[in-house]
């Protein structure tokens, strides 16, 4: 019986140039891309991981969505660190006499219910939102990927227990949990809010990290490394982590946006941040009382909040598209 003459480099030529879309071409491309991780060609994990990231980076650099959202985020980071660059006033310098007044020279966004300058407060609010978002995301990502990754890697009883624990956390509505846990907190710092988000947010990342570690573990080259007697820690660090990281990063980026929105929601419900902390959530919440007469107080911080959340969601979307070749 003659052997098939199919060449080993099936569809390579097309895949290498990234042509996509057409049925026949796209099919062979998808096949090649899916095969590559465990492919018999012996493409090493490092090479594969590196090319995944460099391919993604090449894609991202020419993606307008990534560029725009990246610039917005960069701008937000800069004004969070140096708000005085664009706002000369003091967010806590308020004059009740000017309460609810509209736009006037030097105060483009007008004044809020306590007579504070809305523009200055909106600028200073970025720092709070970004601090909460970034720290909560870091906490969630680290805790979630360590717990989920270990569960996925070792499996067994530890995995079973962890899966049930994540189920338990998933069963509790987030806003509800926030109300219960934060209603008795009197501290006006950002720490209780961040702590709460990490406590209730880690299962989301843990589930994803677990799934992608299990997938990575099943790749042929990882099996081969195991067969060759690679130690657990070496396999985790060198072979699995680089490949399991992508989905975690994508979800964490999008989650960053949702944590910023969650902080605002909790502040609106009165259990998040508290004055004198300057936060968009607090400002929107207090503005909602005056919304019939002075909607500008609500629109500016709400707009800033929406743009920030949007920027992170779009960034996450762009990164996912770049890292997931199947969706191209």
């Amino acid at each position: 019986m003659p052997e098939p003459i199919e060449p080993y480099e099936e569809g390579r030529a097309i895949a290498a140039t990234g042509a996509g879309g057409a049925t026949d071409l796209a099919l062979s491309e998808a096949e090649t891309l899916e095969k590559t991780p465990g492919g018999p060609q012996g493409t090493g994990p490092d090479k594969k991981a590196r090319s995944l990231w460099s391919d993604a980076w090449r894609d991202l650099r020419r993606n307008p969505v990534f560029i725009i959202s990246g610039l917005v985020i960069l701008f937000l980071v800069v004004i969070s660190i140096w708000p005085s660059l664009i706002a000369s006033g003091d967010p806590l310098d308020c004059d009740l006499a000017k309460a609810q007044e509209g736009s006037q020279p030097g105060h483009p966004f007008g004044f809020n219910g306590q007579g504070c300058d809305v523009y200055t407060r909106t600028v200073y609010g970025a720092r709070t939102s970004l601090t909460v978002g970034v720290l909560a995301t870091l906490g969630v990502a680290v805790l979630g990927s360590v717990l989920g990754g270990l569960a996925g890697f070792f499996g067994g009883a530890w995995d079973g227990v962890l899966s049930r624990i994540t189920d338990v956390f998933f069963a509790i509505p987030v806003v509800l949990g926030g109300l219960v846990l934060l209603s008795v907190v009197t501290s006006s710092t950002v720490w209780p809010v961040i702590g709460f988000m990490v406590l209730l947010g880690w299962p989301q990342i843990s589930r994803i990290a677990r799934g992608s570690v299990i997938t990575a573990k099943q790749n042929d080259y990882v099996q081969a490394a195991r067969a060759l007697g690679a130690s657990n820690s070496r396999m985790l660090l060198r072979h699995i982590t680089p490949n399991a990281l992508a989905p975690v990063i994508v979800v964490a980026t999008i989650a960053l946006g949702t944590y910023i929105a969650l902080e605002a929601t909790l502040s609106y419900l009165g259990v998040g941040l508290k004055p004198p902390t300057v936060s968009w959530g607090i400002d929107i919440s207090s503005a909602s009382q005056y919304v019939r007469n002075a909607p500008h107080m609500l629109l500016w911080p709400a707009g800033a909040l929406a743009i920030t959340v949007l920027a992170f969601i779009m960034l996450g979307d762009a990164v996912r598209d770049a890292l997931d070749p199947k969706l191209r």
Partner: protein
Amino acid sequence: MGRYVIRRLLQMIPVFFGATLLIFLMVNVMGDPIAGLCGDRACDPATAAQLRKEFGLDKPVWQQYLTYMGNVFTGDFGTAFNGQPVTELMAQSFPVTLRLTIVAILFEIVIGISLGVVTGLKRGRPVDTTVLLLTLVVLSVPTFVTGLLVQLLLGVKWGWIKPAVSPEAPFSELIVPGLVLASVSLAYVTRLTRTSIAENKRADYVRTAVAKGLPRRRVISRHLLRNSLIPVVTFIGADIGALMGGAIVTERIFNIHGVGLQLYNGIVRQSTQTVVGFVTILVLIFLLANLLVDLLYAVLDPRIRYA
């Protein structure tokens, strides 16, 4: 199939007890369970001690939890801050939130899936780009901002709806709040359907259906849609529980006398029994909704049914 259902039911049990225990601990550790029992003032020490004894609060927490759960299984959810049995509050508020959730889910199914199918089929065209941008905007504006804006515009400025929903909360008054409650999920359903359709459109079996000479409509409705909707149905089913528990914000904005508002009041007044009781029911609904999803999944996908 039967074994599958039983396995799922058994898996629910530890999650149910875990979640209720977690919320019980949170309420007990964080708050003072008797704080709300003496009206707005703090209880004097003697009364407080007596109350603690009466409610069994001097016992260890795990014992309290077991006693509480024992009572729950006989239908006794305790008393709310205003002296009303918690079950009575539930009977008033759950139907309202259920109606609100039904409205929201209908929006997700009708609008979300239709938009998702259209954009998935026309991927890359102007319709697709427009809808995709819209979903991004909806996703990035938190529900409470959407709610406040909708209330301001439709309720106050244009007078299309009443800014606050009446206590009876009929379906007609819940349409706009339901849309607000659904908004984020709606955007998500649209995107999920779009991705799923666009992915399955390239599937081999769709190519086979075309090669069989089936009309385009039949290829889409019978072959493409059925497969693409499996993950969407899963999401929407799981969302039932999430929406009921997440209606706090919407209910507060539109003053809807539902579960969220009762819970909010319970938390503000530190009424342990109200909070734990409501959350217990919500967790149960969440789990049952997930079970429903699993069953639906098996109905839609024979590969699971016969696994």
